[in-house]
Every structure is written in C-alpha cells, then in structure tokens.
C-alpha cells in the first residue's frame, strides 16, 4: 500500500480536526483497555504470563532460520506447498500467478496485516482478480478505500451512518437502517454469496508452529474459517516472524493474544490447519500454499537489538493504551502498521529517512511497554533509532541531524562535565531567554521553540538558580 509516513505531521494535524475519529478515540480505546485488563486478570500471575510470552517470542526470533526450516519441512510433509518470497513484489507475483493459473475471477480474503503491507489487493485487482475482504471491518475499509485505522479494527472509527450509506450503495442492502445487527446481516448476506462460489481463498497467519507444520488463525467472525475451508485453493501468507517452536508455545501466545487484543480468553474461532484436506476429510482446500514473506525481516534479524521488533504478535494493546494514538488515530502513521507497534516496526521495514516522525512523535511515556504481552520495550527502541540518526547509520538509513542541533550537543557535552562552564552557560542564556518575560512568565517566543508557546507559558529563568540559592540556605538555621 501507499507509504505516507513522511506526511505524519500533516496527517496528524488533519486527524486532530476529524470529529468522528476523535469521538471514537475518546471512548473506544479506553473500553478496549478495560476489557484487556479484565481478561489479563484471569491469569493467576499476570507478570509471569507476560514474561513467559516474552521468553517464547525472544527464543522464536533468536532461532528464526532454524525454526523456519523446521516449519517448512513439517508443513511440506503435511502436504502444503511452501513458497519463500524475498519481498512484497515477489510475494504478490506468486499469489497473482497462482490465481491466474487457476483462472479465478475473484478471491475472498481473511484479515491479514502482511497483505496490507504488501499491497496485495491493488496488484490483484489491477490484474483482473477481484479481492473481497470478508472481515466486516476490513470489508468496510476496503469499500471506502481507506487504510486501516486500527490494526485489529480497521474501520472501527467509521460512523454507523456512513456504514449504512455504504451498504445501501455497495452491499445490496434493501432498507436503510442504523441497527448494527441489521447492518451485520446485510454484510453477511452479501459476503455469503462470495463464499458460495469462491475457488481461491487468501488469509494471513497468526502463528506457524515449527514442530507440527501447523498454521493457526484467530478470528471472531468465522470468515477466515470460510475462506480456509470453502475454496479449492487456499493461500496462507505469513511474515517470517510468525513461526514459534512448539504447539505449547503457540497455545500460550494464543492466551496472551486473545486477552490483549479483544479482551477475550479465547476468540470465537481458532483454526489450526496442518496441510490441505486429507483423503478422509470432508472440508478444507485441496491445495494449500504457504507464502513466507521476508520483506526486510531478515535484515532486522541481523541486528540483535532491532530483533526485538520481530516479537510483535499484532494484538494492538499498545495502540489502545497509547496517549498519542488516542489523539490522532491510525491514519496519521501513514502505513499498514500504526500506534507504537508501527512506530517500532515501520522504521525498520521502510528505512529511517522516511519514518522520522514515527519515533519522534512520542513522549516516551512507556504505556505501550507496560501493556505489551511479549516484552517489547518500545521507548528504548525509539531512543535506539534516534541514536542511529545521530550516527548517520547506513544500515537502516539513519537521517543526518541538523547542523544546529549537532553543534548544540557539542557545546552541551563540553560543559556537562565542567560545572564552571555549565554555570557560565546558564548565566549567559538567562537574559536571552528572559528577554520577553513579564512578571516572571514568558508568554511568547519566536524561532525554534515557538511550538511550546502556542498554548503554553513558561516560567522565566529564575533570578537565582538553585545552585546560587544553595549558598544562602545551606546553613540550616537560616531556613
């Protein structure tokens, strides 16, 4: 899909004016966090459950090459065909070719973030294969031609009136209604027809179990199960960090994922597929293809610190708790992945030059880290990326910092271990900063610090710093 991460500031500004998004953001994420907290509380020991999740993913990512080969071996033994795609282009071509060879006019799709990342839908429709998203939210977002607002609820911000109008226009709904049950029913009828004749289904993968060659999907609507069981041909697309060592590991991650994602102990449907339909089975595809997409991940894997980003299980707990996401929503991040997980992942996948704002538009408040079920330390990743910029890092395309800033920190570091110079510096800055101060308050300032003063005052620099006052108060009798 189109990358608009460079436009973060403009998109964020526009979204701050979007009353529909903001109305949702005031209510939706806090409710999701509450549900998540209640569900997490069903663990006998929450920190232990999270530490276990972190350990599983850390191991899985550390052993990535070996586990992927094991998965390929076992999935192939189960009868699946495993394809490796170096990048989005290769993956899209493989899938398109499979569809073309089978002459299908359309495919149904289960919700899949990696296919969003790849822009698969555009490639398919450009080449005469119509992709139908069958997850309700994804269906709405696709019909409205919008990027996902939230990685779990892609159209969760769309007001019901807009859904009504959309379904009247594009989903054969007969009577206009705002009743969510009726709206859901209309979408269901419309999509049922697609499932009825479908010959080719595409889904993502939540977990791929190396030990058994099994792919696991989590959902609440049943559309993924339809997509996996109705058509003759099934393609499961996974980014390569989805692999986990054992079924036991997968089951614990499932517990964490459902709780963190939707506040459920288990989602309504969990599908575990080991290969295509066997001889004695009734349902299931006759051929199963698993496309393992790299698209920059092995490059991330090469750097031990960045590797932490590959732990993400796409639960969106970090989006729901993030105070910045709660103001601007998902569009501002400019790509498939939004919120803190996107801020961690996108710079590595897209390069830092194009994603400057993503790891700077954060207060480092740590709420994301606090809610992550697999132990990603988002703030420390942001600091790591910023350091890459300062070093002009070529590996992840660090963006050279402005000359003025570099000079400032040169001076700063000259003074930081020389207190006499430090004090001299603060004494010199005082009259400059206080020039416009009235009654001890600075109310406006032009230049690089004007952002602060749009809606905020600042106390003037004190006539006497604490250091200067200390001389007067260090003798206890005086105070």
């Amino acid at each position, binding site marked *: 899909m189109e990358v608009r991460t460079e436009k973060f500031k403009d998109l964020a500004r526009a979204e701050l004016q979007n009353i529909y998004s903001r109305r949702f953001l005031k209510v939706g994420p806090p409710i999701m966090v509450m549900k998540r907290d209640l569900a997490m509380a069903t663990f006998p020991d929450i920190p232990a459950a999270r530490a276990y999740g972190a350990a599983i993913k850390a191991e899985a990512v550390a052993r990535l090459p070996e586990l992927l080969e094991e998965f390929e071996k076992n999935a192939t033994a189960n009868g699946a065909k495993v394809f490796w795609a170096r990048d989005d282009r290769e993956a899209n071509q493989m899938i398109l070719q499979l569809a073309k060879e089978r002459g299908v006019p359309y495919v149904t799709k289960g919700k899949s973030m990696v296919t969003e990342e790849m822009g698969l839908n555009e490639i398919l429709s450009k080449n005469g294969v119509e992709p139908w998203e069958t997850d309700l939210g994804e269906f709405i977002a696709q019909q409205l031609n919008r990027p996902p607002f939230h990685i779990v609820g892609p159209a969760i911000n769309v007001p019901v009136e807009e859904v009504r109008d959309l379904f009247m226009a594009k989903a054969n709904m007969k009577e206009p209604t705002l009743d969510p049950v009726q709206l859901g029913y209309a979408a269901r009828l419309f999509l049922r027809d697609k499932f009825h004749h479908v010959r080719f289904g595409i889904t993502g993968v939540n977990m791929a179990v190396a030990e058994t060659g099994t792919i696991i999907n989590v959902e609440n609507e049943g559309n993924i199960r339809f997509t996996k069981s109705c058509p003759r041909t099934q393609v499961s697309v996974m980014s390569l960090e989805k692999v986990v060592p054992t079924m036991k590991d997968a089951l614990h991650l499932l517990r964490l994922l459902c709780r963190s994602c939707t506040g459920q102990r288990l989602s309504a449907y969990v599908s575990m597929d080991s290969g295509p339909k066997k001889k004695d089975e009734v349902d299931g595809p006759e051929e199963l293809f698993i496309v393992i997409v790299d698209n920059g991940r092995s490059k991330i894997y090469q750097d031990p610190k960045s590797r932490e980003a590959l732990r993400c299980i796409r639960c969106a707990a970090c989006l729901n708790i993030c105070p910045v996401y709660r103001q601007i929503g998902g569009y501002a991040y400019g790509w498939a992945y939004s919120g803190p997980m996107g801020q961690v992942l996108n710079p590595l996948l897209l390069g830092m030059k194009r994603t400057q704002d993503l790891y*700077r538009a954060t207060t480092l408040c740590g709420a994301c880290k606090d809610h992550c079920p697999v132990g990603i330390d988002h703030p420390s990743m942001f600091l790591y990326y910023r350091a890459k910029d300062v070093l002009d890092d070529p590996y992840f395309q660090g963006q050279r910092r402005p000359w003025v800033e570099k000079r400032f920190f040169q001076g700063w570091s000259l003074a930081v271990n020389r207190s006499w110079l430090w004090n001299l510096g603060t004494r010199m800055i005082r009259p400059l900063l206080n020039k416009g101060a009235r009654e001890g308050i600075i109310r406006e300032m032009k230049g*690089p610090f004007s952002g602060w003063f749009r809606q*905020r*005052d600042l106390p003037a620099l004190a006539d006497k*710093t*604490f*250091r200067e006052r*200390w001389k007067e*108060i260090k003798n206890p009798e005086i*105070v």
Partner: protein
Amino acid sequence: MKAVSLFIPCTVDLFLPHIGEATVSLLRRAGVNPVYHEEQTCCGQPAINAGYQREARKAAKHFIQVFGGDEIVVSPSGSCVCMVKDHYPELLADEPEWLRRAEELAPRVFELSQYLVDVLKVEDVGASFGGKVAYHESCHILRGLGVSQQPKKLISAVKGIQMVPLNAADSCCGFGGEFANNYPEISEAMVQDKVENYLASGADLLLLCEPGCLLNIGGYLSRNHPGKKAMHLASFLAGNGREGR
C-alpha cells in the same frame, strides 16, 4: 544527622528553584541533612532522548564521579532518577568498570516521595491544607519507578486535606521534552485532556512530583485557566499549599 545528597534536575535548578528549596526543607523536617554537590550539572536525559548517546555517556560518567561516593541520592524528579537507574547501565554496558559503578549507584538513588515514605518511613511532614487536591501520576514515576502510593500517602497525611480522584490520572500529560515543542498540536490535545480531567475532578489544586509535567500542565493552565494551579508535591508540602520552602 544522616546526610543525603541532593540531585537537582536542570529544570528545577533553572526554572523552578523553589522546588529544590522545598526539597531541602522537607528533608530537614524529616531529620536528615541534605548536602548539595556544586559540581553537578545535567543527568544527560536531553542528550539520550535526542539520540546523542556519546554525549549522554559523558554526562553519566560525570554524574557517577560526583555522586558515586554518596550513600543516598535524592531528587524531586522521577524521570531524572530513571535516567540514572535504567539508562546509565545501558549506556555504559561496554565499559565494565563504569558499568560496575553505575550499577552500584543505581539502588542508592531515590525520588523524593519514595525516599520519604519507603526509606525514612515518614508520611506526615506536618503540613496542613483546607481544600481538595488531585494527583497526576507522572509516567516515569509511575511506570519507570513504580511509585504511586508514596506520594498519595504523603498527601493523605496532610491535615484538613481532601484528595479527590482524577480521571485518567495515569495518562501522559503530553510533555515528553522536545515532543511538546516539535509536535505542539498533539501535545496540546493531550495536556488539554489532562486539564479537563483536572477541572472535572473538582480539585482546587493539581499535585504532581515531576518538574517536566509541571512545566507542561502549569504552562497550559497559566495560559488558558489562570485561576487554576498545578504544584509540585514538595513545594505544596513545604508551603502548606502555597508555593514555598
């Protein structure tokens, strides 16, 4: 009298020195003797946040040299304490001797309310205030240090005070250092939410323990709601609700 070393953050030293004085006063009331090393400068937080790790490392080493010999170091800022406790060992991971010194120092550095309540076992500092207050949970104090009950205990022990709940007390106020200046629209929306919750709480005063949050929330109040105030817990306790020592 037991000596404790004062770690005064730059924001306090330059903009809010009364918070430093209040810290001195509270420590003396609690029966300890605050000392101040005049060689102290900055903990390095602005540098590490901007990605200048080499420069931050220099600040870390200076800090360790200045404070390394102290038994206890106390600061009226949680984020600066987090810098020393969490980031110094990371920054100095490749220099074993410095790493050892950083790790030895880390457990001896305390945020003020944490030190008063957890170490000195002091909750009542003899303050009184006839009004309602709410408490803002600053990110680095709450999530960085796990400190939340300590300031509330200090507040509850104030004579005549009524503490009222603050909706979304643990949500970030939108400061984030350079974030507030570089992404003003987002930051303003965040601080606006914080202030709306404060106004809705019915409190006469918003208390907090982080100078950064105070600059942000206080700066927004000063511009948009001049009648309402936010105050650092130290100056509140030391001045019985007035900004004082």
